[in-house]
């Protein structure tokens, strides 16, 4: 027999007139996440996920608790609108939890809510009535209203009641797609996948772009980026990666530009190409894994000079994070182990021993005169290629 998951979503219920659209987006994302394993429907202020026969609701619940917009997921029981029915479900629920978790003398409490005002028992009364039934039915149980081991929730709605006691926290945020697409500069390092995850958390559907430095780097560096995209499909059902061949541009920079400015110019070229791709595809924001002050190209002066090539907003969701925080998050997302594979990415080849930490705009612009910037950008946009990743599908081959 299947099970029932009761999903609470927070923030999006606050957004008055867009609420409908956000809810539809969330339901759509949840449906893609559960696939054939469950039925998803919206009831007032909640989403119900009912797993089909033979599918473990706990497993589906874990998947569902990764979906952005979800605040919490509870494995719930349905009860008829009848006090005795609710009591019976509550008793069975507590028994089941004690068995599963091996609790011997647990404490519990009941938290009831009655949105159906025609139900004859009010919330406080329900707490007492359901709690009393549980206490008398199960031995070795005591009440603790402040820090209970088991918190039995009862929610009485128009047509039925729900009873649950186990809740996962979801990531919160907005459902992916609610905020339109953003172009993510994805290097293969630790930071950029986390930045992508943070952007998705705010409802942005990411479109990663990778600057491929082969043959300055190994094809395994490209494999790394592919693997990262596949991991990120856990949060966004489909991800379309753009690979930009970048070695020729690097060679040009290396040949024609002064050593101390090469990193700055390289990053400006990346931003120009990303902006051109965004413009082509009607995307209105870029997302990077930059943080302030980690490396030479991330001083404020450097960010200013690099940023000067584009009018698009650049979202830098990691700006407030320390490295340790980024690493911890990458580990939770599941990208860390891929990111630390020992293959150079495009940012580490050709890095001079002494890059300028405060590159001024004037000298950089003069140095770029040695390059045919617009032709290089046009060429890169023309030569880039697309690789698509879908959750649960075979990842594409190199």
């Amino acid at each position, binding site marked *: 027999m299947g099970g029932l998951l009761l999903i609470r979503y927070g923030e999006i219920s606050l957004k008055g007139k867009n609420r409908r659209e956000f809810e539809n987006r969330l339901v759509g994302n949840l449906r893609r996440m559960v696939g054939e394993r469950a039925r998803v429907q919206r009831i007032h202020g909640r989403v119900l996920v009912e797993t089909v026969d033979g599918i473990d609701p706990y497993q589906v619940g874990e998947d569902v608790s990764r979906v952005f917009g979800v605040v919490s997921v509870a494995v719930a029981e349905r009860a008829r609108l009848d006090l005795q029915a609710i009591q019976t479900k509550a008793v069975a629920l507590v028994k089941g939890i004690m068995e599963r978790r091996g609790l011997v003398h647990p404490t519990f409490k009941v938290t009831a809510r009655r949105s159906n005002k025609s139900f004859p028992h009010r919330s406080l009364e329900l707490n007492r009535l359901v709690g009393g039934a549980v206490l008398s039915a199960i031995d070795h149980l005591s009440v603790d209203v402040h820090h209970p081991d088991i918190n039995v929730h009862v929610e009485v709605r128009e047509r039925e009641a729900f009873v649950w006691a186990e809740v996962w926290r979801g990531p919160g945020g907005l459902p992916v797609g609610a905020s339109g697409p953003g172009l993510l500069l994805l290097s293969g390092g630790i930071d950029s996948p986390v930045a992508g995850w943070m952007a998705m958390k705010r409802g942005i559907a990411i479109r990663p772009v990778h600057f491929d430095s*082969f*043959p300055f*780097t*190994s*094809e395994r560096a490209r494999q790394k980026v592919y693997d990262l995209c596949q991991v990120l499909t856990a949060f966004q059902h489909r991800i379309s990666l753009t690979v930009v061949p970048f070695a020729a541009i690097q060679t040009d920079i290396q*040949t024609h530009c002064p050593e101390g400015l090469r990193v700055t110019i390289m990053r400006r070229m990346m931003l120009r190409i990303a902006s051109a791709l965004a413009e082509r595809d009607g995307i209105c924001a870029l997302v990077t894994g930059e943080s302030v002050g980690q490396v030479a190209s991330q001083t404020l002066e450097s960010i200013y000079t690099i940023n000067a090539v584009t009018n698009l907003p650049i979202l830098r969701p990691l700006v407030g994070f320390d490295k340790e925080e980024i690493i911890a998050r990458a580990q939770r997302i599941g990208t860390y182990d891929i990111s630390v594979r020992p293959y150079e990415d495009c940012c580490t080849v050709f890095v001079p021993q002494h890059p300028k930490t405060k590159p001024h705009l004037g000298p950089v612009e003069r140095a770029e005169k040695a390059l045919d910037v617009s032709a290089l950008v046009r060429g890169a946009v023309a030569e880039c290629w697309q690789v698509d990743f879908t959750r649960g599908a075979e990842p594409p081959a190199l």
Partner: protein
Amino acid sequence: MLEIYLDNSATTQADPLVVAAMVAALQRDYGNPSSLHRRGAVAERLVTEGRAAVAEALGVAPDEIYFTGSGTEANNLAIKGTAAARKGRGRHIITTAIEHPAVLNACRAVQDQGYQVTYLNVDEQGVLRVADLEAALRPDTILVSVMHVNNEVGSVQPIRQIGALLQSLPLGQRPYLHVDAVQSFGRLELDPQRWGIDMVAISAHKLHGPKGIGALWVRSGVQLVPLIDGGEQERGLRSGTENVPGIVGFGVAARQAHRERAAVQKRMTAWREKFIARIRSAIPSVRLNGPEHGAAPHIINLAFPGLPGEQLVHFLESKGVYVSTGSACSSRQPDSHVLRALGVPREAGAIRLSLSRLTTEAEMDQAADVLVAVVRELQRLYKGRG
């Protein structure tokens, strides 16, 4: 696109004859050699034939060949098996600093069990001095393990002299001589019987045979303790159902290599010299790692000061030429213990080109042109760096 594979010391492409024989062994003659029925008998005959072919290529008796899962396992069996079998006689082992990790790490493992291991240094050409070995010998030395051809630089060790030295010791004090011949079997002359060797480790996939099959030749009378306990296959020294298709493939590959060995060795020697001369005249700063003369003809290790070896590999790859940095087994590690032992400076990016009997002269000429072009391109890019 052009494709020239010069990484044959990492592994080789399987010979079509090898593949055909293996497919038949997997599909038609799929029996277990230990089974009593006809299927078993057919499989057993295949194993016998494979063993005979490998033995013939090595110039030894078939019943002294023990198949293993890899060259690495064969080396482990030789070292750990000797250590366990002879611990009553002594606990000292001598090897060199430039062995393959299969030998070095097996030695370190027995070291952890209380054995003493001497790691002999080599000269700047990568060759062991026999006098150094002689000086290191002790009455309690139970094993000398020296590779025949170094996998990174191609230096050839004086195995024949080492064998003669050990044979001159009184029988009761004579250590076993184990030779890691993974890089030389089927490519260089090797005569374990006459050279006074006791054990030889070999592998199939370096010779256009399959991966997953190796062998240890063990002179009869040599005592070893097995690494693996089980159904007593391979006369108790290596339990586990025989890898029949692997053995069949190994046999075919060994026969082919053996048949052509002398001719292949001769032409490779000439091509190697020509190749090195061409690179030298175009890129004077190149450094040859390993011996100038007398090196294994199928391995060329070159260093280009100031250029990262890894990028050389990828630039060559982008032009269809496949080589490696150092050795494929350890190229993920930033440093080469072999090049350090030879005194090669760390900054010089080294690449290894390795040939096989399928390599042609035209491929070597083309590869030389591509290498020169790539080195010049990278030298231009790295000029004035730092």
